């Protein structure tokens, strides 16, 4: 599975949706993922890719990690995975 598919699978599971319902343009709000769901998703992604995502729930916009939609999240993870390699 590509990084894209693996991230979408994690987000879909958190949102209790089918992966096909999660599009790159979806925002977490669209998907019904609240702040707790977001923190859980980030944890699941960190575990899946063995990476550390810089994210503080108190200042999501100040974190060096864009969570504005699914495409942004995937791009951020691809960058972190590349940096790790």
């Amino acid at each position: 599975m590509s990084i894209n598919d693996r991230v979408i699978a994690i987000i879909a599971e958190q949102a209790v949706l089918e992966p096909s319902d999660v599009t790159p343009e979806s925002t977490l709000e669209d998907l019904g993922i609240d702040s707790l769901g977001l923190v859980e998703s980030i944890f699941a992604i960190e575990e899946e890719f063995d990476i550390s995502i810089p994210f503080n729930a108190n200042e999501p916009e100040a974190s060096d990690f864009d969570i504005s939609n699914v495409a942004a999240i995937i791009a951020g993870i691809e960058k972190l995975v590349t940096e790790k390699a």
Partner: protein
Amino acid sequence: MKRVVITGAGTINALGHSVPDTLEAMREGRCGIGELEFRDVDRLAIKIGGQVRGFEAEGRFNRQQMTLYDRFTQFTLTAAKEAIDQSGIEFHGDLAARSGVVLGTAGGGVSTWDDNYRSVYEDGKNRVHPFVVPKLMNNAAASHVSMEYNLKGPSFTVSTACASSNHAMALAFSMVRSGAAPAMVTGGSESMLCFGGVKAWEGLRVMSKDACRPFSANRNGMVQGEGAGVFVFEDYDHARARGADILCEVVGFAMSSDAADIVMPSKQGAARAMSGALADAGLNADQVGYINAHGTGTTANDKTECAAVAGVFGPHADDLMISSTKSMHGHLIGGTGAVELLACIMALRDGVIAPTIGYEEADPECALDVVPNEAREAKIDVALTNAFAFGGLNAVLALRRA
């Protein structure tokens, strides 16, 4: 109904090993938060906390006691000694039979769990010390205080996360007020600053890596602390009869449950606890001069708490002072309300309002007088102290100048 007064106070926390040292630090706006020091701290993303330093348990407790006292119990006994010594109360006969100890803690013997899990999981050992259970249990501290001071009345531990101490003190207050107990030893303790204790909090992603800046627009989370606060709550007539020095009066409390979310605070739940405490004490909102805020330094708490204060106090919200001493001693979780009660006593007794330090930038969502960075002299008659826990469980106490 009996009137209830506080006749003794004790503490140990990152600001000091006694009440005078702690109050001096609060007056000076000193910060007790610094680099954490314990095993495996390099594996943490959060490396700061309000750690108690220079505490030599070995000199205070003997070998046998050390095998039974987790650090949270050591803190409790240290604070209890100061409080009971100050109070001058001695528990004998009927007074001992009816007086008890109610304490708050969220985690109990966290470092005992941590050390022994490490021993069996990481080091592969198959045997632990026989006293692991009596050492880590949440009621260990309350039980050791009862044994040390001959307290034979109602004694137990309350565990409601960050509101544990306030719930415990509210229960102790209601027991003395009702006449069920002539005196109660109460407060709380926490010692979670070990690898497992901080790692668990790290997971929530609400911790700051650099400082606790409650109400400041650039706040970025909470910082853990550790320590204990213990008080003697006593029937006013009993205290007067024995000529005890009265630190302040406890006049009311309220508890509420948000029944909404396991971590997000609720304005309504917080407001109901504050207005309930005023109603219980028979006070008007405009009599309150100071609120010791829950003020964790998270985005969610501080704006919710300020909105709740504005809702309960109306225009008077702009006249009263509200500060968060967590900026100095960190968040003591289950022990936090007890250490923060000291700031209320200082405000009522000494006329000094402890500051919110680390305040750098005004936040329109927290537009109250948060006593930024420097303590202030002010004569006040009534103070409230807030605690709003994870799980949506809230407890607020109201205190009056003696």
